């Protein structure tokens, strides 16, 4: 089924997607917000530029955007997959607790803020290009990978991992000159360690039709917090 976004209000788009069992193609999308909010199943293909909060609370469906995303893509996502053939705005994957997001190019501020994991439910964000400030702020779990496919000098920006107390940020970079917060431990990964992340890279490559090995050469850094109890020593009972 095809929908031309221009003739619908957003909740009508979502109603129609659900009525079609979750699978739909939306064309000429231009800024409509909340598309596929909370969707449990199906594949929504979008041509154009969806508005904010695309796939918020996503619960199992797949979203493919042929274009750029805006802010709050995959907000509080629980399950499913979002694939963006372009770049996205701020707060990508805010408080995600499951599922995967693949962004072909770059992301703006505050991607992966508050993402968390539990048991085998580990959310994954793979960013093909570079990320803006505050990447992984307050991160409590999960994996964020910055592939830096175009070999930018500084693929991550200031305040990456501020307040982070769980999870892993993986960054491919020649050298990391970004100033990192005190509580973040940053080190070069050994070759063997990378294998834990290669399935995600492979998935990125297959989604965007790239040959994988080229993306995964050079130095790779792993950023992790030094404690999962960041405030323990701060307080005294009164």
């Amino acid at each position, binding site marked *: 089924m095809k929908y031309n976004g221009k003739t619908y209000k957003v909740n009508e788009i979502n109603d129609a997607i659900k009525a079609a069992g979750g699978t739909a193609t939306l064309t000429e999308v231009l800024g409509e917000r909340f598309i596929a909010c909370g969707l449990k199943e199906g594949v929504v293909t979008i041509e154009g530029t969806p508005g904010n909060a695309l796939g918020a*609370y996503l619960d199992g469906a797949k979203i493919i955007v042929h274009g750029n995303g805006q802010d*709050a893509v995959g907000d509080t996502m629980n399950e499913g997959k979002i694939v963006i053939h372009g770049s996205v705005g701020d707060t990508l994957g*805010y408080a995600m607790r499951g599922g995967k997001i693949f962004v072909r190019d770059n992301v703006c501020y505050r991607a992966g*803020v508050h993402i968390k*994991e539990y048991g085998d439910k580990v959310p994954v964000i793979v960013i093909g290009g570079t990320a803006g400030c505050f990447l992984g702020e307050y991160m409590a779990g999960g994996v964020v990978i910055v592939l830096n496919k175009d070999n930018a000098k500084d693929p991550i920006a200031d305040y990456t991992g501020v307040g982070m107390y769980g999870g892993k940020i993986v960054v491919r970079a020649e050298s990391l000159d970004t100033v990192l917060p005190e509580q973040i431990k940053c080190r070069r990964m050994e070759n063997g360690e990378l294998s834990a992340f290669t399935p995600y890279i492979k998935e990125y490559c297959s989604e965007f039709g790239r040959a994988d090995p080229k993306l995964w050469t050079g130095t790779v850094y792993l950023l992790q917090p030094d404690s999962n109890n960041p*405030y*323990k020593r701060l307080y005294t*009972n009164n």
Partner: protein
Amino acid sequence: MIDYNVAPFEVVRDYDKCVNCRVCERQCSNEVHHYEEGFGKMISDSAKCVDCQRCVCLCPTKALKIVPNQNAFRPNANWQQKYLTEIYKQAESGGVLLSSMGNPEPFPVYFDKILINASQVTNPSIDPLREPMETRVFLGAKPQTIERDASGKIVTKLPPRLKLSMPVMFSAMSYGSISYNAHAALARAAEKLGIYYNTGEGGLHKDFYKYSANTIVQVASGRFGVHKDYLEDGAAIEIKIGQGAKPGIGGHLPGAKIVGDVSKTRMIPEGSDAVSPAPHHDIYSIEDLRQLVYSIKEATEYKKPVIVKIAAVHNVAAIASGIARSGADIIAIDGFRGGTGAAPTRIRDNVGIPIELALGSVDQRLREENIRDNVSLVVAGSIRSSADVVKAICLGADAVYIGSASLVAMGCHLCRTCNYGKCNWGIATQRPDLVKRLNPDIAAERLINMLTAWNHEIQEMMGGMGINSIEALRGNRLMLRGVGLNERELAVLGIKHAGEV
């Protein structure tokens, strides 16, 4: 280091009554009491006592009492003992002081300076035992215009609302900050009473999904435990922006409390902290708030009202005016005396404003701007009795939230040490041996008893005023008079002074 502080309380044991049964020893999680073989009697270490009254209540011979320690630092009206005590603690530990429950400082309690009207001779009072009295309220936006469809028929589709049998709900207390049994009791009581309880920000335990018709689910900045089924399970969804006990400060459940099912419900590993900082890092404006409100509405197909909860702060009226335009259906305002499982002492005791003044100004502001019916107002922090409920409604509230009062009904004695995690009443703890002390059936019954009594009292006060429906009480400031309040205070509350006609 030498501890410069003295015990705040003294355990007094009447040895003529004490039979060495050792109940107190078993009941005190602070390990105050023990049996001294050599002396053949019970000994108490007063320094560890927090005055929770558990041992006093359970002592079979009533041999115990806890009194304030009479030992006194040299009296000083400026340097009160508590300031010295707190400095000693910080000099020793270097820590930020952490407290719990509501602000205990002697700020004015405006509810206690407001009196309620009653009818005499004309407009006679109504006997609630004989006449029907309506205490049911609906919360949510009230449509301003009549919509008609193409054929001219009136469209009767109303925005989603909450239906309460009486204008009281249990306020947000997370599973984690309070125990499983305390949550179970609140859920059961809410169901029986036809009101709502609130999950707080830690998600919802699987066992409690069955109470969904009486559950408000909360979404805070860390979004712990938030997913589509959780949103769908709530009768309403509350976005927590602020909390009265700690405006501008977020929630932080220490790793020590993230154990077992709490960890599973929040979906973070055992032992890890759960941090919900004060700002939602995706909300920097009313437009951003509107986006979160609508993303929740989209995810739940516009079937559930959305509540936005804020702390009562200086410019609360302007903030509420923005929220009333954000698409939210209900605004919850939490006053500076609201309870908490843990808050920095300085914040709890010095930040925010009284709920009575916040409510007075918000209600008047929304009326002036003609947007009062866009939203319902729910107030909290702190409502202690049915009289406080009636006064709040006359000042413009649609309903109130009670937190501390509901814990007190279950046994809490406001010892204000919830942050220790060793609550002897089985409420603010995750220790299994303590949690099991709180029987959820009995606790639910106590909650039901209390609110049933409050409802009768509300009806009696309404009847006394000659009013038979709570709707007619809302914002009815003529039914209130202030005593000992100055002109500014009266103006903010929007009421007259006692004796004025």
